[in-house]
């Protein structure tokens, strides 16, 4: 399978480990990633708050770029990118007044977007297009036996459901199916569908951190050895700001947080260096030790 790879801003800079792991895992799964140096930022849920039409047009351009290259799938690795690209598709399909303005603007720069290229998150591609959890299980070389992993979905991958059309918006199971296929044990906790707090990290940090802390604590109290997320923005809240989050909820937290492709990569036998595990703020060493995996080079 060949897809247009839309890494998003974070995976290209502060969260580069997500890009590293994505490329390594895709190659193991026989998924061909086509890069487009023309892709722009998705607007991250902020641009649409100041100008929805502009945001839709920016993402219509992103989708049109893939469409022009003859690719029907734009693969995202971020719940928010996925949400914003889907928002563009939904608005174009349902709001003719916006559609006509966006179409005209795109025509002016030599693009058309017919709707044939659609965004899909990496997780969604694994479960819907690459044979699902069963096919993944057959590729596992280092089962993550004994590891209790708390999936943390990231709101925009799931909600609103009529836009995202993926899994159940409040009681999903695809990520847990994948965790089981990798040989690990999923943790059942309500926090998995809650918010990480990231959208208000700049508006009111203490509240954002309190929200992140609540979800990490929930995972911890349900026995998680690690969390894993398909969204690099959630990763910032859960990993980068974990110490502050702990302070806000009055607990010392020490919860390793994997990016979704890193977890898959570990089970496929990729080494922690390739997956960029040393780039986390909370050490993943404890979780790796439990697996008997190679230590992360410092």
């Amino acid at each position, binding site marked *: 399978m060949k897809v247009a790879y839309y890494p998003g*801003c974070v995976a290209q*800079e*502060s*969260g*580069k480990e997500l890009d590293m792991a994505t490329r390594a895992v895709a190659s193991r799964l026989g998924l061909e990633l086509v890069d487009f140096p*023309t892709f*722009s*930022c998705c*607007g*991250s849920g*902020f*641009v*649409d*708050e*100041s*100008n*929805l*039409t*502009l945001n839709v*047009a*920016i993402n219509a*351009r992103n989708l049109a770029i893939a469409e022009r290259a003859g690719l029907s799938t734009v693969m995202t690795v971020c719940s928010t990118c996925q949400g914003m690209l889907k928002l563009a598709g*939904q*608005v174009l399909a*349902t*709001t003719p*007044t*916006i559609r006509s*303005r966006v179409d*005209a*603007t795109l025509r002016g*720069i030599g693009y058309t977007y017919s709707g044939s290229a659609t965004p899909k998150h990496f997780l969604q591609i694994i479960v819907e297009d690459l044979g699902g959890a069963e096919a993944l299980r057959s590729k596992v070389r280092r089962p993550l036996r004994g590891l209790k992993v708390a999936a943390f979905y990231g*709101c*925009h991958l799931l*909600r*609103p*459901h*009529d836009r995202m*059309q993926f899994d*159940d*918006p*409040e*009681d999903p199971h695809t990520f847990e199916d994948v965790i089981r296929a990798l040989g690990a044990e999923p943790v059942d906790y*309500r926090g998995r569908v*809650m*918010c990480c*707090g990231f*959208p*208000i990290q*700049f*508006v*009111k940090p203490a*509240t954002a951190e*309190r*929200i992140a802390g*609540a979800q990490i604590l929930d995972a911890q109290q349900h026995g998680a050895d690690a969390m894993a997320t398909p969204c690099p923005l959630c990763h910032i809240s859960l990993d*980068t700001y974990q110490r502050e989050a702990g302070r806000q909820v009055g607990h010392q937290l020490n919860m390793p947080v994997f990016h979704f492709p890193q977890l898959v990569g570990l089970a496929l036998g990729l080494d922690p260096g390739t997956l960029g595990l040393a*780039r*986390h*703020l909370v050490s993943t060493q404890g979780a790796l030790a439990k697996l008997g995996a190679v230590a992360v080079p410092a």
Partner: protein
Amino acid sequence: MPTIPFEVFRGSPGQTRFDTFSLDIPEHTPILTALLKIRDEIDPTLTLRYSCRQAICGSCAMRINGKSRLACLTPVGPEFRARGKLRIEPMANQPVLRDLVVDQGPFWQRYHSIRPYLVPDPQHPLPVGKESPMTPEQVAQFQETPRCIACASCYSACPAIASDGDFLGPMALAKLFRFVVDPRDGAFHERLLGVQNQSLWLCLRCNLCVESCPKDVRPAERIHDLKWMANQELGALERGSRHAIKFASNIREGGLLNEMKLARETLGLVGMLGQIPKGIELARHGKSIRKHPPIQGREELDAIYRELDRPEDLQHRPRVPGQGVKGPTQQPSKAGGAA
């Protein structure tokens, strides 16, 4: 008929427990009917709120397997099959009085704080003894919000309410939106100004309120509309609006986000000083935040901005219409509703 175990939250502040009751009931039985059967036939002390039994009065909201739902609108079958159990708890984010009954005081206080009534412009008083006609287009601006039955499901589902008392919450803000777009109301500017200072900008856009609302009011989208209008009307007045407005101009420059610049513009110089220790910590893990090289085709993006980055018409503002497709566990359909 299957035997269905109900794990029901019991107690009053200080002493709480879960009681398990088993019932042989058809799968289509509404959870409210099952709870009333428990009260009538097993434990007459079980305390809960309800009235209409048909999704009109908004009294019977509670958490069902963690989801905030109307008990009279939620059948036992799908929930029981999905989770293998039925865990029934009082709504979240409100103090429990007893069993499934909560104190809704804070919810209603927020509602009253937005002045949920028309405030006409004194310069243009409403005609006395005559109707104030509206165009169908004007009515369509607030078609969703009058459906609200004030059940507080959204308030119970909201993670921002759970973590910050300053937030007004989904229902109060959706109601505020209804008056902000009403052409008979004269307090447009004051209403928007009144919800700055974080009572609006703490919405996380998690959309849990959209999924939990039994009437498809889609509060998060109404809050999005309010933020959009506040940005148009008031500009970059505070951190939340500044962040949204500066984000848009930020990616115009290079195509990808310049995180440093955005932080500087949102937080200001003093705010940035507080970020220095985190910056050092990130750098130690190889996570330093450098500026992305510009994307190819930046001039295309620039052309899009030239065409579309201009104030949009408030009266004809773009909408994100819901398509009325419900999540797989939201049964039966939410159609219909009270005025």
